[in-house]
């Protein structure tokens, strides 16, 4: 058995201690939500994405060092009825078979007013990428960090949805998130 040098365990302990002090940056999906709002015939339909995971490293004293990485199961989009769910998983829509995951990886963070920052990053969805800048509000729920925000994407840009649906379903889809660590 290989023996570690004493300095190694000291560093390991220090790192573990720092990580604990900053809180676990892993997102607790059971307390969090990511909801896409479609508009059909001007009717807003909230569709939660039920499976996702990720982490947000955020320290209020060094907000511009913040980092976020999220991964969402595209097949977990819940339109509220089995008919719709079957439809949105098909090729012209989310094509969850070919693209089971969507992701957002931050590239830079710009601090704003206290408790606010703009996260710029890359959204990858259905094999296409888009650079997004998302305004995020930071809060606390007990000892856990909470991040709230929303952004809008275009279905057409990501090739989501059959053309025949375009006069019924709006191109713009609003996505709002409430992420608790």
């Amino acid at each position: 058995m290989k023996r570690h040098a004493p300095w190694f365990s000291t560093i390991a302990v220090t790192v573990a201690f720092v990580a604990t002090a900053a809180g676990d940056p892993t997102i607790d999906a059971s307390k969090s939500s990511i909801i896409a709002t479609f508009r059909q015939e001007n009717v807003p339909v909230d569709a939660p994405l039920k499976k996702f995971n990720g982490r947000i490293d955020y320290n209020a004293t060094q907000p511009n060092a913040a980092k976020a990485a999220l991964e969402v199961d595209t097949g977990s989009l819940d339109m509220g009825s089995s008919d719709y769910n079957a439809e949105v998983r098909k090729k012209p829509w989310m094509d969850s078979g070919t693209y089971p995951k969507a992701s957002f990886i931050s590239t830079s963070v710009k601090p704003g007013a206290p408790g606010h920052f703009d996260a710029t990053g890359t959204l990858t969805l259905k094999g296409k990428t888009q650079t997004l800048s998302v305004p995020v509000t930071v809060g606390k729920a007990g000892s856990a960090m909470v991040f709230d925000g929303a952004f809008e994407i275009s279905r057409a840009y990501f090739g989501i949805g059959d053309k025949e649906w375009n006069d019924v379903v709006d191109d713009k889809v609003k996505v709002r998130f409430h992420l608790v660590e």
Partner: protein
Amino acid sequence: MQQTVVYTRTAVVLHWFIGLLISAGFMLGATMTDLHMSPRKLKLYAYHKWIGITVLGLVLLRLLWRLTHPAPPDEPMPHWQRVAAHATHWLLYLLMIATPFAGWLYSSASGYPVVYLKLWQLPDLVSKNKALADVLVEVHGYLAWTLLWVVVLHVAAALKHHFFDRDATLRRMLAWQRR
């Protein structure tokens, strides 16, 4: 011959217009649910909801009108028919309100709010709840079918009075006179 007292023009217009809307709404409701998922299906659902909300609004208006402008006195008929006719009328009012109302509740519970004529979003009466939605859609359906059968009874009785009793029951609702 004494002139028959007829319904007011407002009552006549509301009666036939609501009747037309109920027929259209019922036929849409009975067929749209079996359609495959398509843009057309979404549109039909929207039209069905708009029709239902229109019926709800007009029926409330008509009820208000009825309470301030009494219906003409009954034609001569046996006591039981009189009782049955009035019971049917009030049951119709009840169902014409309850059916669209249950539909609205169902829309709210299933997370698909009603946006009337694509313009005005109606408030959600309950929050999204799948289990509740499953019950409400059944209730909405039963109410609609009950409404259909009571309408059938109402029409049959009107035709019976017109063709067999040859009284003015139906004509009072067809007349176009100022009262």
